[in-house]
Structures are given as C-alpha cells and as structure tokens.
C-alpha cells in the first residue's frame, strides 16, 4: 500500500450525503439494465427502465448530482462493473452503435434537473407543477434520442434516416409510459416523505 504522510482532510457532511445518494442511484441504474416490461405498443421490444432512471436522477438529485450520478454509471461500466444491458462492459460499449444513448444520459439527467428545479439548486418537489415535471422529462427524452441518433450515425455508420428508423421510431411510444410512471412515483407519499 502507498502511504501519504499528511493530515486527514475530511469530506464535508453535505458532500458525503450527496455522494452516497449519487453512488446508490448509479447502482440502481445498473439494476434497471436488467429489468424489462412487456411493451403494449411494440410487443417485440421490451420496455427497459434506464431512461426512467435518468429522469429520476435529475428529479431526485438535481442537475449537478443527478448528472454526476450518470457519469459515475458510465465510468463504472467502462471499467468493468456490469451496469449496462446484458452485462456488457468496457470503453468499447460506449463507442459502439448504442453508445450515443449512454453518453447522452448525464446531459439528459442534468437537463431534467435544471427544468424541474428551475436552476442548479434543489427545490422541494411539492412546489413543482406536473406540467414542469413532464416538460423536463420530454426535454430529457429529446436529449437521449438526439444522442442516440448521433451515436448511430457517428459510431454505427448509419445514415440519418436509417438512424431515426432504427433508433427512435420503435422505442419512442414507450417513453410516454415512463413519463406517466415517473409522475406517479414523484407524487407518491412514500417518496415525498423520504
């Protein structure tokens, strides 16, 4: 073990609390990669919870820590923690055809957080209107799918029309379900009290 001969510089209380939430949200995102539900709009394509996790990170942790939580998630996946779908890991996954979606997650979480909390600092969710919640998540969805299409073009060699057909059309309808679920979650008494 290496030894550092200097006095201990403790991490502040607020940062420790945020760090614990950030890390556990990133772990939760990893858990979501393995959970899927049947899709009522397109039976062959299951509904996965990762984009919902991105929304919730922005809503519950705010733009800064929410965005950082998704950075942690990506770095964890890049160094080998099996947090991406099917246990795929490594830097190569981020540079593959689906890498655009993954790389957009931190930006999307920050965007959702910025809209929902009307700025970089956390506000009580009780004061946030449902329209603002939905608006934030619609913006987050646009960022994720914009990143996804860009990734298919840059990493996958797709043409723009092909990228939209393969990467958006089939998946987009299920996002409405996730937004509805997220509103239900945020408005539930259990989450408001936590």
């Amino acid at each position, binding site marked *: 073990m290496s030894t550092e001969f200097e006095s201990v510089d403790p991490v502040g209380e607020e940062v*420790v609390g945020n760090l614990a939430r950030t890390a556990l949200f990133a*772990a939760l995102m990893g858990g979501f990669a*393995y959970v899927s539900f049947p899709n009522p709009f397109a039976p062959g394509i299951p509904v996965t919870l990762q984009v919902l996790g991105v929304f919730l990170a922005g809503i519950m942790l705010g733009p800064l820590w929410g965005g950082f939580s998704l950075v942690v998630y990506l770095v964890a996946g890049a160094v080998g923690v099996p947090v991406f779908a099917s246990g795929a890991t490594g830097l190569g996954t981020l540079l593959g055809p689906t890498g655009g979606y993954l790389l957009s997650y931190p930006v999307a979480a920050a965007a959702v957080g910025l809209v929902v909390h009307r700025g970089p600092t956390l506000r009580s969710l009780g004061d946030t209107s449902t329209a603002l919640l939905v608006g934030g998540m619609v913006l987050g969805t646009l960022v994720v799918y914009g990143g996804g299409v860009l990734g298919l073009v840059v990493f996958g060699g797709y043409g723009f029309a092909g990228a939209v057909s393969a990467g958006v059309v089939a998946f987009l309808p299920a996002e409405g379900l996730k937004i509805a679920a997220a509103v239900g979650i945020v408005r539930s008494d259990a989450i408001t009290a936590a």
Partner: protein
Amino acid sequence: MQRPRLDPRTKLALQAALAVAAFEHTTPRGLAVTTALVGVAVLAVGVSPVGLLRPYVVLLPFLVAGPLFAVVRLRPPWLVLGDAVTPALAGYRTVVLVTAGALYVRTTPVRESEAAIQRLLPGRVGRLLGIAVGLVFRFLPLVRRELSATRNAMRVRLGTEQPVHERISRLLIGTLTRTLRRADRLGLALRARCLSWNPTLPEIRFSWVDAPGLLVAAALVAWTVL
C-alpha cells in the same frame, strides 16, 4: 514469480489510442492493423474471443441493421449494395473496440481502476468519482437482488395483470424509498469512518512492461495525427 502486468493507466491509454486510430482509419487496411493489435493482446492474455464477446450479443441487431438500412431503397433500384460498406466497416470497428474494452475488464480488478481514476483525474472530482465507482461495484448485486425479489413478489400477487406504467411505479416507489434510506445510512457510515479527500489508495506502479505498451499507444496516436 508473479507475471509482470500492465499498469491500468497504460491499458487505458492503449484503449484510448486504439479508439482514436480506429475512428480515423475505418478502412480495411486500418482495421486490419487495429485487429492485429487486439489479436496479439487476446493471445497474450490467453482468453477465448468467443467467451469474451458473449455478453455483447445485445449489440448485434444494431450492427446488422446498419448495413441493412443503408442498402434498402423505397424506390428502384431498391437495393444499393455498395452503400453497405461504410456501416459494415463501422460495425466491425465496434467489434474491435468492444474486444479491447472486454480485455481491459477481464484483466483489471475494479479496485485498480478505482485507483487509476483517482490518479488520472486531478483533484476532488477524481476522488469522488473513484469512491463512487467503488460503491457502485459493492451495491450493484444487492440492488439487483432486491429488484428481482420485488418483481417476484408482485408476480405471485398477480401484479402482472396491472397496466405497465402502474407496475413500473409500484416497483420503483419501494425501490427508491429503500435506496434513499440506504443512502442516508451509507452517508452516516462514511462520515463515522472519516471519509477523507486523501485516502490511502492501492498501489499501482509503472514497470518495464509498460514501456512497450505506452510506445504502441504513442505510435497509434502518431499514426492518426501524422
């Protein structure tokens, strides 16, 4: 005697240089060079490429769809096979890069990566990122077990009969409440153990075996830039 091993920072540099070179030289000749380099690494590590790539089958539909979408036209001549070349090369590049990433993962314990992150990224952001990645590694199995137990409990109570968005809400309300409570306990435990900005990291050290690795990385970057 223990076999000499590459420092994780060298492996990260090699991966980054390989990615830069593969993107710049997405041609049959360029990809032959990057494939040869990754092939040598696979042989040196002594793993089966099939076993190594099995988890990445999930990417296959996207790799196949790229060339398919490129060749199909909605009017005559219906198929333009020549247009499949660019997405097919991009797809193959993905296979090369994914193999390199999988090799890194196979040969590097997360604890070493954590130390590499904290050394490579300067200041407090690197420290926080390193600690958080370590925590994700520790808590992921627990989170997965809990999600699966909750889903089983919902299934046996006929939860599968409910609309999908209600099932998702129900699953996540319990999971999020537990996560937030656990985060509070974890925060308290970290403070009780005096989490510091200057922790003792596991030792990672450059050795003579890193010299050829770093040279290859430099050569790849030079090949890209020059």
